[in-house]
């Protein structure tokens, strides 16, 4: 393949993931679709930390699975070096898998209990490279050092480590292949509160030192905002707002993003305020509302919202919103 410089690492175009819901015993037929992803466009560039925020049913985990080739989308494409990741040949696939790694939420479930730390860290390397035993040992030492783990722990099993240490092992594993993009799926939610920030700072330091890009998936907007350069807000399978972090928080435009910010808890008891709670429940991806999928819960909806689905349009410098009300910010909620 010719060496071509791309200004993005991954380009996600109109990605859809519709899971069929089948019924019937003999003649099994489809009675509905779970539209986990319903048309997502996103670009991940070099050294960018894209935060993906959304609640249940938003599709953020499904997006991660598609990028990791754990699911094949029903529509759309994910371009890596100009080619769709689902049509790569064997060597291109190996290169892709080296480039993109992941750190998951549960540091106990994501590490094999039967492997020692050093084996966990080198497992991705054994599949894709031809390093000698000595080189692998060095890699392990390097990776452990980078994540702040005592190299004396290399022969230890995961159950002998604390949650924070296990997550460090998961991170060491993710950087061992000299990856360029790491998908972080709620990397600190399962950790003790006092340890969370240590891991977050570690991830932020690694991002700078190794010039990594992250796709950070989280439900805690404050934590995502702390770590990310840009934020994409997802609702029921689509991105409803996207922007550079400070801009998005300062000029929050989409009513759902405003609701997320409004629903966030105060930093101090004196900051408590009466605020309108978003009504209703998050709709099911089995039954996506017509028109704008957020309209049933939207405080400012107009008749067009029930009929036509809005597309992402720019509302500022690197700030995109999918809303028919765009430009009209609701009175109080942006900070």
């Amino acid at each position, binding site marked *: 393949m010719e060496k071509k410089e791309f200004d993005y690492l991954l380009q996600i175009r109109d990605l859809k993931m519709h899971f069929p819901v089948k019924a019937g015993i003999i003649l099994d037929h489809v009675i509905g679709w779970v539209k986990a992803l319903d048309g997502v466009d996103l670009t991940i560039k070099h050294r960018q930390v894209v935060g993906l925020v959304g609640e249940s049913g938003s599709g953020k985990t499904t997006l991660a699975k598609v990028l990791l080739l754990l699911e094949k989308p029903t529509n759309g494409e994910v371009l890596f070096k100009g080619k769709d990741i689902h049509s790569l040949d064997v060597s291109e696939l190996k290169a892709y898998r080296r480039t993109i790694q992941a750190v998951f939420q549960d540091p106990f479930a994501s590490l094999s209990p039967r492997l020692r730390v050093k084996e966990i860290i080198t497992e991705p390397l054994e599949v894709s490279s031809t390093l000698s035993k000595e080189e692998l040992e060095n890699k392990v030492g390097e990776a452990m050092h980078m994540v702040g783990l005592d190299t004396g722990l290399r022969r230890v099993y995961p159950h002998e480590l604390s949650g924070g240490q296990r997550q460090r092992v998961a991170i060491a594993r993710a950087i061992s292949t000299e990856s360029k993009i790491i998908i972080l799926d709620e990397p600190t939610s399962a950790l003790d509160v006092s340890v969370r920030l240590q891991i977050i700072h570690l991830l932020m330091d690694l991002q700078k030192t190794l010039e990594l890009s992250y796709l950070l998936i989280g439900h805690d907007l*404050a934590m995502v905002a*702390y770590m990310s350069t840009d934020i994409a807000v997802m609702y029921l399978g689509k991105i409803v707002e996207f922007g550079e972090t400070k801009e998005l*928080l300062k000029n929050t435009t989409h009513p759902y993003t405003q609701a997320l910010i409004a*629903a966030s*808890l105060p930093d101090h*008891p004196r900051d408590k305020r009466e605020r309108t*709670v978003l009504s209703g429940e998050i709709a099911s991806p089995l039954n996506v509302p017509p028109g704008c999928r957020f309209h049933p819960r939207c405080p400012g909806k107009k008749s067009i919202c029930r009929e036509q689905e809005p597309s992402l349009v720019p509302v500022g410098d690197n700030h995109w919103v999918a809303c028919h009300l765009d430009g009209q910010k609701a009175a109080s909620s942006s900070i």
Partner: protein
Amino acid sequence: MEKKTLLQVVGLTTYFFSFARTRIVKAVDNVSFEVNAGDRLALIGESGCGKSTVAASLLRVLPPSGETVSGKILFEGEDLLQKSNKEMTQIRGRKIAMILQDPMMSLDPVFTIGEQIGETLKQHTSLRGDSLIQRIKELLLAVQIPEPERRIKQWPHEMSGGMRQRIVGSIAISCEPKLLICDEATTNLDVTIQLQYLNLLKDLQRNTGVTLVFITHNLGIVAELCEYVIVMYAGKIVERAPVVDVFDSPAHPYTKALLDAAFGLQVLRKRRPIPGEPPNLANLPPGCSFNPRCVYADDRCRKEEPPEVTLAAARSAQCWYPIKA
């Protein structure tokens, strides 16, 4: 107005024992506190600090390896630790109720919503038949679940997480308890649903006067909902204070460290992580349990356990060098 003491915990000590008692985990170590009627108390600390064990000790639902070895739990003046099992069944669900973190664990998947709410009501009241169903409908409306007639026949898996947690809430308040303990009740809920739920709890308190004890590690919930805070670490209470004081001028280094490490949207400043790891309760360091992670620790902290020091009215900290305001 003189506030009535509803609950008085004195010297509560609960240990977990391994087989043949070779290892002892000091989950709760000499914990004493008071809760007045109508209070909104937060019991904060990270996992392993003992806060959930305090709740389990109170309701006497410890697992077989746990044992409350000493102390008194005076509820409405009577020591719960002296009560028989039969007497405790009259208290659980009726005088003291608890909402846990995962509604899918709290609700039985093979019984309908109506059957589950009805179960508690049948245990503690004489309501049956139509009057029982009427009460169940009232409870569903009280937790803001519309169309109660339809919901009564539904199963837990047919409802969203937020709804299930509200059902759990309705079971908890069904017999009008005096004390409601919420143990990480909103941790599994989506952000927008969490706020609805916290508002619901506030409404419940306004309408029924129930006393709330909130067990959590989330300082945002404490800021939003609670009036008084008790901070636990390694099985002991390290600080207690009114909520505004805790946020404005934490006295214990652990409390301060938690605040420094917490996230908030209002100010996106650089936060400071707490060094080290939470302690191993079977092998606590000598002296103050927090000393390995404390930036202010000195030799005294490493050798001698500090006493609880009263700092002001309703404020104290267990530290040799409480941080001055």
